[in-house]
């Protein structure tokens, strides 16, 4: 019902706009008023000559009555309505609303889009405020200096006599601290400026963020490291000034590029693309056929070129402490930048079941209707000596629902019942979540006392 053709509703809206009676229009077109009524209530499909006649009878261009772009509006409105079930804006009414009030529908769709992008910004900034070590250090510096200034000023302005030597000392402290405060504020403002523009600037980015930005520009696919003529990771690094800005970025990037090249040697892209083009591609079967591990295949799938047609996929890696160490974002699935992710994710479940693959349908909390399948596995890493502790790394591939992708269809048919997940507790709307560790900042989303009890 929600996606039916809305031509009838548009005809009715135009007719009422023109002040033409139903019987009058029916007579002009040469059909009965009862039949026009069925058309106007979208109970009869319409096209061809009759549509042209009705447009002529209304004195409008036929294209203004045609179906098409309204379907996108219906989808967007249904998505907006799903976020506010208490508003009782059911999908049965959506088509009528779009057809009869196209301007208002357009407004709601635009506002919904705006709310979505603002929510993403809030999510990212909240994550940054809570977990970004650079931001925390800057805030701590500013608060410390303000405290010192306040104390010194309080002493100097008190009624009690202060010896000249102490007066001089606190005046000097005031002078030094006011300079430090100015510098600290400059750094903070610069950081917040960059934080507001989440796609620009690199002054305060962490190495992982800078590498992610470079990879994003390449679509996470690096042709220079693929195939028999692949260059070495160090050669590519030398040719890429964006990855050499700081020693930390350089080291982080080298480790990533080295692993990428190793993966490319074990799972050549041509073979992977052939395997993924089969009717029901299965990463585990591909791993078995190539004699490599599943995590390696998942990483290779995540860096397949866009033209491969596998549809949108993302990937997240974490170490055994649960710290996210790498992420390729995918639209519709929020991944926090600085850790503190949703403990329900199969990524973390996999850590408790090493070597056992997990396939799970995930429905992200929130107003969007995106659906994903996660394929996750935890595998041992390092451990070259019995005297060293065994470490683990978990990998989770995120496959978006894409009816045009055989891989997406195969994964959705293999996945278990959907699981509602969030990005992280602070920005998650799921109520009564067994894994909540802190209250949400979202209104009405479990922002009670419960979460605080899990901190220790």
């Amino acid at each position, binding site marked *: 019902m929600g996606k039916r053709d809305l031509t009838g509703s548009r005809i009715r809206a135009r007719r009422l706009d023109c002040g033409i009676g139903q019987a009058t229009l029916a007579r002009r077109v040469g059909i009965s008023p009862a039949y026009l009524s069925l058309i106007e209530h979208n109970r009869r499909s319409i096209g061809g000559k009759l549509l042209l006649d009705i447009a002529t009878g209304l004195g409008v261009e036929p294209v203004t009555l045609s179906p098409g772009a309204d379907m996108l509006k219906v989808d967007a409105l249904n998505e907006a309505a799903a976020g506010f079930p208490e508003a009782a804006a059911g999908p049965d009414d959506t088509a009528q609303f779009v057809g009869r009030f196209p301007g208002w529908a357009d407004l709601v769709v635009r506002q919904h889009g705006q709310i979505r992008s603002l929510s993403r910004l809030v999510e990212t900034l909240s994550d940054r405020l809570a977990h970004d070590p650079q931001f925390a250090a800057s*805030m701590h510096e500013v608060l410390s200096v303000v405290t010192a200034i306040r*104390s*010194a000023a309080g002493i100097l302005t008190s009624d009690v006599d202060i010896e000249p030597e*102490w007066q001089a000392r606190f005046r000097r402290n005031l002078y030094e601290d006011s300079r430090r405060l100015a510098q600290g504020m400059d750094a903070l403002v610069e950081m917040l400026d960059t934080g507001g523009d989440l796609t620009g600037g690199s002054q305060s980015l962490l190495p992982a963020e800078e590498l992610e930005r470079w990879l994003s520009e390449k679509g996470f696919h690096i042709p220079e490291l693929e195939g028999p003529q692949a260059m070495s990771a160090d050669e590519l690094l030398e040719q890429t000034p964006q990855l050499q800005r700081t020693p930390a970025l350089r080291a982080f990037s080298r480790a990533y590029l080295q692993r990428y090249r190793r993966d490319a040697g074990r799972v050549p892209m041509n073979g992977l693309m052939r395997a993924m083009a089969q009717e029901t591609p299965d990463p585990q079967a591909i791993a078995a056929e190539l004699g490599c591990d599943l995590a390696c295949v998942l990483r290779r799938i995540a860096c397949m070129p866009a033209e491969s047609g596998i549809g949108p996929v993302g990937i997240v890696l974490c170490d055994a402490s649960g710290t996210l160490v790498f992420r390729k974002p995918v639209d519709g699935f929020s991944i926090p930048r600085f850790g503190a992710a949703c403990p329900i994710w199969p990524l973390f479940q996999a850590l408790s079941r090493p070597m056992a693959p997990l396939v799970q349908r995930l429905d992200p909390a929130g107003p969007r209707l995106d659906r994903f399948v996660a394929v996750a596995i935890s595998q041992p890493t390092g451990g070259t000596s019995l005297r060293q502790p065994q470490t683990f790394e978990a990998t989770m591939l995120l496959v978006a629902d894409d009816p045009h992708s055989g891989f997406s269809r195969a994964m959705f048919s293999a996945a278990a019942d959907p699981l509602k997940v969030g990005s992280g507790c602070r920005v998650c709307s799921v109520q009564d979540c067994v894994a909540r560790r802190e209250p949400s900042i979202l209104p009405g989303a479990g922002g009670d006392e419960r979460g605080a009890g899990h901190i220790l």
Partner: protein
Amino acid sequence: MDNRILLIEDEPNISEAIRFILQRDGYLVDMHSDGATALAAVAQKHPGMVILDVMLPNRSGFDILRDLRANDATAGLPVLILTARGQDKDRDLAMRLGASRFITKPFSNADVLTAVRELIAP
């Protein structure tokens, strides 16, 4: 009660100001700035009270507080926590770990004096 206070704070100008106002009020103040050796400083100075910053170099003030409370000799020692982390969860954590008082930065001199006077006499 001993009116000696051990001030564990790594920001020298804050330490200097707090020491000044407490000494003017009649307290004896020793200063220490490193988290890793803070417990040793407590054992050495035998203060009647500790003023403890949370974000210290090498060791968190929360960890130090936890160890102070786990030691019979210092389990009842008054501890005033100073921190720039003013969120409710930090305050809850400090109180659960056994803090006697909790003050967030930026504080006033009067805040510190009032809290200290409530915990030990000059």
